[in-house]
C-alpha cells in the first residue's frame, strides 16, 4: 500500500492527503479528554473555595466579620460562645516566624553546601538525606515532638509542660527544611557557571564568590524558597497540634516562646470531629478554614510570582531586572541599617533596653571583625559554619529516625503485623490499619495518576501558553499550596455530607487523590519537558499524528519521571492524617472494609490516637510509628533510587 501512490498523479495525491479525516477526529477526541483532565485541577480549587465559603459564610450571622477576625476570645463551646480568631491566627503567625528563624539559616546553609561545597559523593548523601526529612509523616514528627521534644523543653527550661510555641516552631522548622533546601539549591545551581568563573578569575576566594556573587544572583529563588517554607509551616496540622498545647491564648509577653499556643490548623484538627454539623461552631470552623486557605493562597501565589519572574529572566523573556529588585539593590545598605535599627527598637521596647544594647554590641563586632580578617580565614570560618549547619540537620534526621527505630523494634513481631488491635490498641496488632492505609493509597493513586498525567500531557504537549494554561497552572499551584486539613474539611463537606458518601474508604481516596494531584501533574510536566523537542519533530516529520508522537516517542522516555512522581505521591498519601481524619477513618475496627463505602483504619490516624488519647500504649505507639515510617521512607527511597538510576542512564 505504501508503494501505490504515483508521484505525478495530482488527484491521487490530493485524495491521499485528504484521507486523514477519521484520524483527525480521533486526535480531536484524545485532545479533549486530556483537556478535561487539565480543567479538573482548576475546578477542584474552585469547588474547594466554594464549599468553604458556603459552609463558612453562615457564621457571620452570629458574629460580625470584624469580631471574627479580631475578637480576642475563641471559645465556641462556652456558655456564651465566642468566635474571635485573633489568638488563632496570631498563633499561626508566631509559630511560623519561630519556625523560619530556625529553618531559614539552616536551610540556606544546607543548600549552599549541597550546591557549591560538597563533593559529588557527599552530595549524593546530603541530598537524599535532606529529602528524607520530607518523607517523614507529620504525625510521626508530632509523635516524636510529643514524646521527646516537649520533655526536653520541660526539663531544660524547668516549666510544668513542654507543650509550647517553642516546641511547635522547632518541629515546623525541621519540617520546612526540605522545601527550603531543595528550592534554594535549585536557585543556586541555576546561577550560570560564567559568574562563578568570572569571579574566581579575579582572584577572589570561593567564599567571596559564593557570598558576593552566587547567593545574590540566586536571591529571588531563595526568597521563593523561604516563602514556600512559610506556606508549608502555615498549613501543617498534625505536628503542631500535638506539641503546642493548644491553648487559644496570645502569649504574654508576645515573645514568650515558652507559652502554649494554638494555630488555625490545630483548631480545625481538634474541634472539627467534635462539633454538631450545621451549628454555629461548625460554620465558624469553616470560617477558620477559609481564613487559613486565603493565607496560604496568598503566600504560595507570591512564591509562584517570584519563581515565574526568575523563569522569565532565565529564558530571556523577562524585562530585565524587576523594578523592586533594582530599588532594593540601590538602597540595600540603608535598608539593612533600617531593619537592624527597627529590630533593636522592638527588642528595647518589648524586652529590655539592656538586651538591645548587648545585641547592638554583638552586631557591631560581627560587622567589624569580618572585614579585618584575611579572606582565607573568613572562608575557613564560613565553611565550617556551613558544615555545622548541615551536620545539625543530619543529626536531627538521625535522632528522629534512630529514636523511633530503637524504641519501635521491640514492638515488631508477627502478631503485631497480622492481628487486629485489642484493648484500644494497647495490645494486639495493627493489621487493619496497614491494610486500610494500603487501600487508601492505592485508590488515591488510581484516581490521581490518570487525571494528573492527562493534565500534564495537555499542558505540555497540546497547548501554546495562553490565558487558559495560565489559569490551569495557577489552579494547580493553588491546589499544591492548599493545607491538607483544608482538603480534609472539603472532603467532609462535599464528599461525606453533600454527596452523601459517608465516612468511607472512597471519600478518603478521593480526598487524598485531590491532595496529591498537583505533585503528579508537576512531576509529569517536568518529565515531559525534559524530552528533547527534536524527538517530537523527528516523529512529526515522518507523518506521525500528534497522539502517535506523544504515545510512542515522548511518553516512553518520560516514564521514569512519571513513576518517580507517582511514588512520591504514594508516600505523601500514605503518611497524611489530616485529609482522612474526617473522611475515611475510624480508630478501631476489627474487620477489614468490605466495600468502598466502609470506613477504614489507617496507620497515621492510629498513631495519632494512640499517642494522644490512649494512655499506656507506649510499645504499640513506637511500633506503629516504626511501621509507618518504614513504609513511607521505603517508598521515598524507591523514588530516589528510580530517579538516580535513570539520571545516570539517560543518554541523549
Amino acid at each position, binding site marked *: *500500500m*505504501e*508503494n501505490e*501512490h504515483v*508521484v*505525478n498523479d*495530482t488527484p491521487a*495525491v*490530493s485524495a*491521499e*492527503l*485528504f*484521507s*486523514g*479525516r477519521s*484520524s*483527525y477526529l480521533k486526535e480531536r477526541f484524545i485532545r479533549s479528554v486530556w483537556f478535561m483532565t487539565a480543567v479538573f485541577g482548576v475546578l477542584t480549587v474552585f469547588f474547594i473555595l466554594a464549599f468553604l465559603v458556603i459552609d463558612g459564610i453562615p457564621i457571620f450571622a452570629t458574629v460580625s466579620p470584624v469580631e471574627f477576625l479580631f475578637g480576642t476570645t475563641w471559645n465556641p463551646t462556652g456558655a456564651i460562645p465566642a468566635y474571635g480568631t485573633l489568638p488563632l491566627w496570631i498563633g499561626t503567625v508566631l509559630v511560623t516566624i519561630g519556625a523560619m528563624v530556625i529553618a531559614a539559616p539552616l536551610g540556606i546553609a544546607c543548600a549552599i553546601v549541597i550546591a557549591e561545597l560538597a563533593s559529588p559523593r557527599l552530595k549524593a548523601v546530603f541530598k537524599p538525606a535532606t529529602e528524607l526529612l520530607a518523607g517523614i509523616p507529620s504525625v510521626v514528627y508530632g509523635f516524636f515532638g510529643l514524646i521527646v521534644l516537649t520533655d526536653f523543653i520541660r526539663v531544660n527550661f524547668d516549666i510544668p509542660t513542654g507543650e509550647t510555641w517553642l516546641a511547635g516552631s522547632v518541629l515546623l522548622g525541621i519540617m520546612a527544611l526540605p522545601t527550603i533546601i531543595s528550592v534554594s539549591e535549585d536557585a543556586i545551581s541555576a546561577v550560570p557557571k560564567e559568574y562563578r568563573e568570572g569571579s574566581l578569575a579575579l582572584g577572589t576566594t570561593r567564599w567571596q564568590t559564593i557570598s558576593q556573587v552566587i547567593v545574590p544572583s540566586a536571591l529571588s529563588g531563595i526568597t521563593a524558597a523561604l516563602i514556600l517554607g512559610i506556606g508549608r509551616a502555615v498549613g501543617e496540622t498534625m505536628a503542631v497540634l500535638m506539641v503546642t498545647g493548644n491553648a487559644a491564648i496570645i502569649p504574654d509577653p508576645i515573645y514568650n516562646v515558652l507559652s502554649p499556643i494554638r494555630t488555625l490548623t490545630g483548631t480545625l484538627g481538634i474541634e472539627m470531629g467534635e462539633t454538631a454539623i450545621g451549628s454555629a461552631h461548625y460554620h465558624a470552623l469553616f470560617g477558620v478554614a477559609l481564613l487559613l486557605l486565603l493565607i496560604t493562597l496568598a503566600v504560595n501565589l507570591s512564591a509562584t510570582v517570584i519563581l515565574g519572574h526568575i523563569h522569565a529572566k532565565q529564558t530571556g523573556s523577562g524585562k530585565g531586572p524587576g523594578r523592586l529588585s533594582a530599588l532594593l539593590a540601590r538602597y540595600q545598605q540603608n535598608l539593612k541599617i533600617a531593619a537592624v535599627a527597627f529590630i533593636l527598637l522592638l527588642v528595647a521596647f518589648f524586652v529590655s533596653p539592656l538586651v538591645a544594647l548587648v545585641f547592638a554590641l554583638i552586631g557591631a563586632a560581627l560587622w567589624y571583625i569580618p572585614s579585618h580578617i584575611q579572606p582565607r580565614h573568613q572562608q575557613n570560618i564560613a565553611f565550617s559554619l556551613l558544615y555545622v549547619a548541615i551536620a545539625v540537620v543530619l543529626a536531627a534526621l538521625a535522632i528522629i529516625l534512630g529514636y523511633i527505630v530503637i524504641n519501635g523494634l521491640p514492638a515488631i513481631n508477627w502478631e503485631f503485623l497480622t492481628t487486629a488491635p485489642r484493648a484500644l490498641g494497647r495490645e494486639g496488632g495493627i493489621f487493619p490499619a496497614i491494610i486500610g492505609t494500603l487501600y487508601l493509597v492505592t485508590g488515591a493513586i488510581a484516581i490521581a495518576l490518570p487525571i494528573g498525567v492527562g493534565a500534564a500531557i495537555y499542558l505540555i504537549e497540546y497547548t*501554546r*501558553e495562553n490565558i487558559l494554561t495560565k489559569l490551569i497552572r495557577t489552579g494547580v499551584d493553588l491546589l499544591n499550596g492548599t493545607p491538607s486539613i483544608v482538603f480534609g474539611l472539603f472532603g467532609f463537606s462535599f464528599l461525606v455530607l453533600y454527596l452523601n458518601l459517608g465516612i468511607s474508604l472512597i471519600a478518603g481516596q478521593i480526598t487524598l487523590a485531590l491532595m496529591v494531584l498537583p505533585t503528579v501533574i508537576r512531576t509529569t510536566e517536568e518529565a515531559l519537558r525534559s524530552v*528533547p523537542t*527534536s*524527538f*517530537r*519533530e*523527528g*516523529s*512529526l*516529520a*515522518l*507523518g*506521525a*499524528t*500528534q497522539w*502517535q508522537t506523544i504515545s*510512542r*516517542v515522548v511518553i*516512553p*522516555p518520560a516514564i521514569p519521571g512519571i513513576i518517580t512522581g507517582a511514588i512520591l505521591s504514594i508516600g505523601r498519601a500514605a503518611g497524611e492524617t489530616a485529609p482522612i481524619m474526617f473522611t475515611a477513618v475510624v480508630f478501631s475496627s476489627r474487620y477489614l472494609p468490605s466495600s468502598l463505602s466502609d470506613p477504614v483504619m489507617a496507620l497515621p490516624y492510629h498513631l495519632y490516637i494512640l499517642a494522644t488519647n490512649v494512655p499506656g500504649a507506649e510499645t504499640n505507639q513506637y511500633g506503629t510509628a516504626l511501621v509507618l515510617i518504614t513504609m513511607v521512607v521505603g517508598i521515598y527511597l524507591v523514588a530516589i533510587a528510580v530517579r538516580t538510576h535513570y539520571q545516570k542512564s539517560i*543518554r*541523549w
Partner: protein
Amino acid sequence: MDTSAVIETQGVNLWYGDNQALTNVTISFPEKTITSLIGPSGCGKSTLLRCLNRMNDLIPSCRIEGGISYHGTDLYGPAIDPVHLRKQVGMVFQRPNPFPKSIYDNITYGPRMHGIRDRKTLEQIVEESLRKAALWDEVKDRLSASAMGLSGGQQQRLCIARTLAVNPDVILMDEPCSALDPIATAKIESLMEELKSQYTVIIVTHSMQQAARVSDYTGFMYMGELIETGETAKIFENPEKELTNNYITGRFG
C-alpha cells in the same frame, strides 16, 4: 513556470511575531532534482524549508502569507492534512535525532504509524531503507541495538533511512552534514546523488562547496529574500546579482 515542479511557492511572507523572516519568496522545486538553498546564517533557509512540510505550524508565533502548492494543491488549504503531508514530504534535521529506540524500531516507526503491521513487510522496509541510506552493511548485525550508540554520521544516515522508510515524495534536508566530520559528510553527499533518481531533494547548506557538488539548482537567500535562483552551474559561475557574486566569492557571510 516549470511544469514538472513538485513544490512551488508564490510570494511567501512569513513572520515570527513581529519579525519578518521571509519576504516575497517565489521559487519552484523541479521533480527528481536536488535543489540547494544557500545564504548566510539567519537568512531564512530553515524557515523556508519548514514551510514546505508545515513544521512551522508547531511554532505558535509563526504567521505565513502567500501561496505554496504541492503538485498543484494549496499546501495550506483545507484539503491538506499536515500529518499526511509530512509523510509525503519527509525531513532530515540538522542534528541527527534518532529516537531512543533500537535501530530496527527507528526505521519501522514511520511505517508502523501508517498502519503497516506485517513483520515480513517491515523487515523488507528496514533492509531496503538502510541499503538506500548506505548504512545496511554497518548495522545489519545489530539491528536491535540502541540507535543512540551509533556515531554521529551513522545516526544521520539512520535518520535518512527512517525518512525513506515512509516512502516520501520529497525529502527536505536542513544542513544534514553540519554536525558531521568530513568522511561522514562525503558519504551523505554521495548518498544524495543516489536519492535523486527517486526523490525530489531540497537541501539547506551553509557550505557553498557542498551546494556546488551535489545540487542541480541553487537558490541564494539573503535577509529573508530569495535573491537569485537557477541552475547551480550558472549561479556559481555567472550569477546575475551582485549580492550573489559577493557571497559565492566569499566577500561576506
